[in-house]
């Protein structure tokens, strides 16, 4: 719970007016422990160790569920069961903490509509539920469903999907507390590389991607009696595919219930999509009004020359002239946010000294921030610096995390420059980039809404009203339109969907994206020429990885380096291991240079991992911070590596690597890299200043972070990104002979456009032919 609701509020008539500020204005600041998104940080929790009474023990016969019929329960029956004193799911005595939380739960906006929800739920197979963040839908709706599904009777679970791993973990923790059960037993979570569930689990929070993977082995999702798709408005790739899939499953399994939950945006679209003939293509909708206050919106009269400058100016103006209330500023990325924070702190101090304003406390918030620091945004605003002085103010400078997924109370002013970083993939030149792009109208409205959670607020948009109307698109493009679909296509193939062209996408991707994905899978030998899954494709689909990585991993046993490739794959699947703080760039670069390997970045990362593993557990963390390495990323890579290793062993792949002394040790690794990434190769240009991607003929530069010099003729890259320049990142030098050997179809010289690359390949072919002839003669 993000809000500390201290009053009974069962009246549902005017929930919007129910301010949680007490009369004297002392805002009830939310305790971070109550925030469901942060629950994982209180893992050890204050759960009192209550005396457990085994189920069917002394109090048998008092089954709280006695007399209830599945899918015909009422709110009253459920509440009675919830009121205890026995935990209906475990049979244990309920703890005091449980009852404390229960009071708060009953105050949540969704609780007021439990009756309506149950009725609609019981009468329909598919239900669209709309409720704003903070309405309690993520924690409460799955519990409402539990008390109606009575899963312990059917043996079927309830799944609730989340777009983000952290959310799945922390919400599961919170709900386990609410239900007074141990996390991982009745309530658990299942995210990529981490499954915390058991046979007792009846409610499972999971990432949408994990449910999709489960569907690959269980196409009808028979394990579940109800599936709740939460945060569907975020339109992640996996949620979109799941929706298409569930629409089909719903036809096959009439008993499966589906709840699609969204935060007010674009609900009609979901209704239409899930509508069936019997409801005139309009799925039933239940909306819980959020507790919001009016927000006044201000536009700038002129377009801004520099949105960061304008944002800082606006924040300081608010601080200088507006009444008490915290400020939320949306910026795009870590660097920009840190820079803004630094300047705000400086200016804030100056204002306090010279104009006697209240103290200004500035916090940054972005995804890669360590959790302890993320948590600080929930600290209350600072008090006045002296008695009778002006009250202090808190400023949170955030990426669009704070737009929907995280709620910070006390925000009264929102400053919205109108930008966010968005991923874009273009199949034509196969570039995937995080680019600063204008947000959508829907996002802008969502941002404005953040100002009205405590009391009437103000939103300052740093663009003109005309620009809002003309320049912003209505809805943010769903991820499926902005992503490489290679792994999605592989998943769909594995799910048994053969006609990808007519699959019921909510927003179908561009045909070229699909074509590229099929083509790439064909080159990787995951699909045959008729589009059927090959043996390799089937194996690759078992890894929760991009097909290129999966194929590389499978091929690594051929190249006798599975252990090394496992490590590299794991390292590529976690956030960047090298840290480069803006203030200590030089030191960080020096630290990185210790690990540098002349062959390139992949092996450099491998070096880091090897040293990390050789360090004693107790000093590893210290060693990481001394060497500007991310301990979190390295430990998580270690974990990922173990998970992948299990899959490889299951597939009975040969796991023996050549020894470190072998002179082909590094060549083997580089060749194995080629086996997965032969489509991501660049060749040095004749002028020698840059590289050109081999098939798409794009001029690219080595990313400045690379350890490689300019002398390598052919390089393999992990990513092609677009910032202000075309960059290739994480590169390793390779030999053209390997490419021709490993991927003869892709490197069919005749298929290349006339140019440098073709000539170079032709020469390599000839060289190889000569060598072969020579060897044949000798042999």
């Amino acid at each position, binding site marked *: 719970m993000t809000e500390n609701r201290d009053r009974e509020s069962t009246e549902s008539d005017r929930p919007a007016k129910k301010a949680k500020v007490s009369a004297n204005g002392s805002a009830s600041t939310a305790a971070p422990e109550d925030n469901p998104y942060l629950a994982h940080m209180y893992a050890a929790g204050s759960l009192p160790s209550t005396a457990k009474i085994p189920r069917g023990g002394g109090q048998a016969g008092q089954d709280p569920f006695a007399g209830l019929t599945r899918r015909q329960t009422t709110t009253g029956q459920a509440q009675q069961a919830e009121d205890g004193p026995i935990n209906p799911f475990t049979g244990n005595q309920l703890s005091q903490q449980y009852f404390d939380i229960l009071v708060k739960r009953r105050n949540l906006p969704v609780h007021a509509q439990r009756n309506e929800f149950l009725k609609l739920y019981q009468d329909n197979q598919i239900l669209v539920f709309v409720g704003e963040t903070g309405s309690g839908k993520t924690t409460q709706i799955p519990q409402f469903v539990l008390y109606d599904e009575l899963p312990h009777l059917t043996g079927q679970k309830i799944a609730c999907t989340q777009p983000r791993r952290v959310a799945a973990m922390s919400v599961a923790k919170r709900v386990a507390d609410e239900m007074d059960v141990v996390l991982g037993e009745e309530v658990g979570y299942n995210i990529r590389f981490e499954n915390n569930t058991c046979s007792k689990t009846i409610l499972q929070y999971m990432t949408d991607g994990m449910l999709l993977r489960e569907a690959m082995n269980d196409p009808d999702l028979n394990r579940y009696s109800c599936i709740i798709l939460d945060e569907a408005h975020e339109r992640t790739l996996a949620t979109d595919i799941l929706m298409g899939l569930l629409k089909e499953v719903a036809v096959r399994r009439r008993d499966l219930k589906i709840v699609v939950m969204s935060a007010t945006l674009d609900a009609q679209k979901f209704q239409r999509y899930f509508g069936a003939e019997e409801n005139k*293509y309009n799925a039933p909708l239940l909306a819980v009004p959020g507790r919001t206050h009016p927000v006044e919106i201000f536009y700038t009269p002129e377009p*801004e*020359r*520099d*949105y960061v400058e304008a944002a800082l100016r606006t924040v300081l103006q608010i601080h200088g002239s507006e009444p008490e209330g915290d400020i939320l500023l949306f910026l795009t990325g870590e660097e920009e946010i840190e820079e803004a924070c630094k300047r705000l702190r400086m200016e804030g101090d100056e204002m306090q000294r010279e104009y006697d304003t209240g103290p200004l406390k500035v916090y940054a918030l972005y995804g890669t921030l360590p959790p302890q620091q993320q948590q600080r945004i929930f600290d209350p605003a600072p008090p006045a610096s002296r008695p009778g002085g002006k009250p202090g103010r808190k400023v949170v400078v955030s990426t669009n995390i704070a737009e929907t997924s995280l709620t910070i109370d006390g925000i009264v002013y929102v400053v919205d*420059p109108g930008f966010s970083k968005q991923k874009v*993939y*273009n*199949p*034509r030149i196969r*570039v995937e980039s995080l680019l*600063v792009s204008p947000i959508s109208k829907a996002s802008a409205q969502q941002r404005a809404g953040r100002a009205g959670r405590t009391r009437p607020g103000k939103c300052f948009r740093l*663009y003109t009203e*005309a*620009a*809002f109307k*003309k*320049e*912003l698109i209505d809805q943010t493009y769903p991820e499926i*339109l902005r992503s490489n679909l290679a792994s999605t296509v592989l998943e769909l193939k594995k799910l048994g969907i053969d*006609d*990808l*062209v*007519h*699959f*019921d996408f909510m*927003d*179908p*991707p*561009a*045909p*070229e*994206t*699909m*074509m*590229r*994905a*099929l*083509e790439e899978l*064909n080159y990787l030998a995951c699909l045959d*020429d*008729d*589009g059927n899954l090959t043996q390799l494709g089937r194996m690759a689909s078992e890894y929760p990885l991009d097909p290129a990585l999966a194929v590389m991993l499978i091929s690594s046993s051929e190249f006798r380096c599975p252990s090394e490739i496992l490590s590299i794959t794991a390292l590529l699947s976690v956030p960047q291991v090298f840290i480069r703080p803006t203030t200590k760039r030089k030191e960080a670069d020096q630290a990185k240079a210790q690990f540098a390997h002349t062959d390139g970045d992949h092996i450099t990362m491998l070096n880091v991992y090897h040293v990390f593993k050789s360090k004693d557990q107790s000093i590893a963390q210290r060693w990481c911070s001394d060497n500007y390495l991310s301990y979190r990323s390295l430990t998580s890579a270690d974990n990922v590596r173990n998970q992948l290793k299990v899959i490889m062993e299951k597939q009975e792949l040969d796991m023996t690597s050549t020894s470190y002394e072998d002179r082909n040790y590094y060549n083997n690794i580089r060749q194995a890299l080629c086996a997965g990434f032969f489509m991501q190769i660049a060749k040095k240009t004749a*002028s020698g200043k840059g590289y050109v991607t081999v098939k798409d*003929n*794009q*001029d690219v530069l080595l990313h400045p972070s690379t350890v490689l010099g300019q002398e390598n003729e052919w390089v393999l890259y992990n990513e092609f990104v*677009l910032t*202000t*320049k*075309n960059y290739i990142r994480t590169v390793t030098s390779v030999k053209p002979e390997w490419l021709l050997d490993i991927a003869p179809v892709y490197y069919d010289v005749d298929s290349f456009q006339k140019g440098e690359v073709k000539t170079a390949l*032709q*020469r390599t072919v*000839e*060289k190889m032919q*000569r*060598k072969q*002839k*020579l060897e044949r*003669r000798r042999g």
Partner: protein
Amino acid sequence: MTMPSTAPTARPVKPSLAFAEDDDEDAFSKLASSSRPKPASRLPPVEPNSLVRPPTASKPAASTQDTIAEDDDGEDDYMSMTVADPTATETALQRLKRRKLEASIRGHPLSKAELAEQERQKRDAGLSTSILNNSASKGLKMMKAMGYSTGAALGKSMPEDANPGTDSRTIEPIKPVVRESRTGIGHTSELKRKFSDSTTARDDTAAAAKRQELSPESYRNRLTQEAQQRRHEAQLFAAQSICEKLVAEDPPTGYEAGSKPVSSTDDQTEKNDSAQNPNTAPDANPHYKSDFFSGNPTFTQIKQINLIYRGLLYRRALSDLKARLRKEQNESLSVSKSAHIPKPVLPKYNAKGEFSEDDKLALSLGGDINLEESELDEEWEDSELEEFEKREVKDRLDEIVRYLRSQWRYCFWCKFRYGSDEELERDCPGPAEEDHD
């Protein structure tokens, strides 16, 4: 195939040697190629002298010299002669060409801005080219097999999508847009509107023109041209001076000394004069009436001089006029001051018939004395002369040289006035400068 022993001097390079220079495999490959059995499918033996020609029409063969150079370090296997499979390899000549090209690319490194521009252009080109046209793509074949028709969207059409125009399904992939600055929303588009397409349309051609200007050849060419131009101008001035002198010494028929000069050679001038300046007949301006050849003609008189050397007199008259005006102005302002100057040095004309820089400064002719304020503004304007001077210097020079020749048998290049036409024919090498080299 075997060659007669005359072959070694003219033997095409073996394909195997073409790329094996600085390689560790070099030695092996040479060894390999030397002992390679001759495939039957190779071209039939060729006459040595035909070797300089390509084996097939499409493939130029190695030049003789190239092959010798190539084989100098090779082994003596000239008894065997293999001709390259004409479609597969690069001949020595081609390689030479390629290397030259590569060297020239290396020799003229592009600037950072140009590289960025090239990168952007390639990217834009890539981003705006649909890959659905690539019919060889197996991905497209698979989609076609699933029932995809090119140009259509994927997915199921919604009931309301049936009417055209409402189908919101994606066909084009989203293009990445890079924002290079932190301008706010609406700012760049406003700029774009202001500059509109005028800049974008000319962008490419302007950039191309700029690049061309930057190449060393064009720079050299430009310098040569400028030097040539200066030379021609000096020659023109010299020719005009000669012309002036000759007219004074030996006026051509049709010229009447005094106040009524008529161009004998140029009827056009006469017509123009009478048509355009009816009021500016010499008599109408008694103030400027002076002797025609005294070196102080009026503008109206000047206008009647033959175009080919009129410019000389015109400019001189203009300089004089300016000086006089300036002097009048100065005198009217401070007569006493100028009285102090004991022996004023008279300003002199330079090679172009104008005052030298020093004199200009001395006379405080700021370079552009405002003649528009003077009452003479109509008189000194000469549109005819302006037209004439728009022509190329070389062109005008040629004309005056021809005129001197025909009028006075004076050859500008010999710097000599011949006595008779026969003499001119006999002793002068020709009418052009090149003839006198």
